[in-house]
């Protein structure tokens, strides 16, 4: 029956070819972009808490040691969340009638625990141990971001497996010992960062990055030192990246 399509259909045909290439790629990259965005990872997303607790104020401005509240951080897997009692040890004296602390007092009176919204969460099948990381001098900020800057606490990094492996595969890039205080225990080193920030002493680039909660590229020299440290601490790199180190 002669011509059944108009010339424009040729253009359509061409377009459809490009579409067949572009659309799937778009979906692929779009999807992965979303999955890496805060929408999925919650990085930097703050949650409503019964009390707008500020690490900035307590850890940085007041300079309270992390271990004052997170008592078991260098002893066990869990850092530990402070019982009401810990808060009350100060707040029975100061801010005793500030309205934002009412939930705290309420909890104290009624013996009802405060119920916080969890910010940092690993899947059930990942077994993370705070104490050993602290024992290697890994600063809190390495994983939790610039805690001392957080008015309301939020997630510092997306805990992706790749991100964990970066360090577990090449610990020498992340392990360091503080030149300024050579005979400080790793535990103290891990937690000394904040004191330095408060005292405003000169920070090394690495510490600067930690302070800002940014990733840091170790220099060749630092990596060399890191290697020595790895050897000194008898860190078994291969074993660090074995599945059962974190999954059981």
């Amino acid at each position, binding site marked *: *029956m*002669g*011509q*059944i*399509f*108009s*010339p*424009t*259909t*040729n253009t359509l*045909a061409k377009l*459809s*070819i490009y579409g067949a290439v572009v659309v799937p790629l778009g979906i692929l990259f779009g999807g992965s972009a979303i999955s890496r965005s805060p929408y999925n990872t919650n990085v930097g997303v703050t949650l409503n808490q019964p009390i707008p607790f500020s690490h900035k104020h307590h850890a940085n401005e007041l300079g309270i040691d992390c271990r004052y509240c997170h008592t078991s951080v260098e002893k066990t897997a869990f850092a530990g969340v402070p019982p009401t009692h810990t808060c009350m040890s100060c707040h029975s004296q100061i801010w005793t009638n500030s309205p934002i602390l009412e939930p705290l007092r309420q909890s104290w009176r009624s013996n009802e625990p405060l119920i916080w919204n969890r910010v940092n969460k690993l899947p059930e099948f990942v077994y993370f141990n705070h104490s050993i990381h602290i024992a290697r001098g890994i600063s809190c900020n390495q994983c939790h971001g610039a805690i001392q800057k957080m008015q309301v606490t939020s997630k510092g990094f997306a805990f992706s497996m790749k991100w964990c492996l970066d360090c577990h595969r090449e610990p020498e890039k992340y392990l360091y010992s503080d030149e300024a205080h050579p005979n400080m225990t790793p535990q103290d080193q891990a937690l000394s960062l904040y004191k330095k920030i408060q005292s405003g002493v000169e920070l090394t680039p690495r510490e600067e990055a930690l302070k800002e909660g940014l990733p840091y590229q170790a220099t060749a020299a630092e990596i060399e030192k890191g290697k020595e440290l790895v050897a000194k601490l008898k860190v078994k790199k291969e074993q660090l990246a074995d599945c059962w180190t974190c999954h059981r």
Partner: protein
Amino acid sequence: MSDTRVYGLMAEFDDPEDLVVASQRAHDAGYREMDAYSPFPIHGLDDAIGFKDSKVQWMMFWGGVIGAAAGFALQAYANGMDYPINVGGRPFISWPYFFPVTFESTILLSSFAGVLGMLGLNGLPKPYHPVFNAPRFDLATQDRFFLCIEAKDPKFEIDETARFLEGLGSLSVEEVPH
């Protein structure tokens, strides 16, 4: 000197051999911008209209080569470099283990290259084409055989060419409008 009012002249035959002969003579007569149409491939028709092309073969060859390289590289990178894991004490990179996937990717890319190449070179998909304007052209996919000398051929001169085509023993000669 060519003619822009029409796409070309279409001669119809009812026998494959006639078409081959006609095409041959048209070619001898110096026509170059022409094409022959048949419901099934006819041996020698391409030589008759003086057409040579082996690009498809080469595309498929290179498709295969790339497929093989990519296939092996993927495995070597994934299991050998990016995340080498000991499975049952096997070597990280082990070509016998990697052969099957390499082979399959070779075939896959090669056939993609072939088909896409074939369509591309043939300028398909192209739902609209002037030759469909020829009134009886729908028989070209059934039981008739056509020879079309296109207007863009320098030697094309509508009456002259029409006469030439009729001289080839065609059943009919018609103008193919744009």
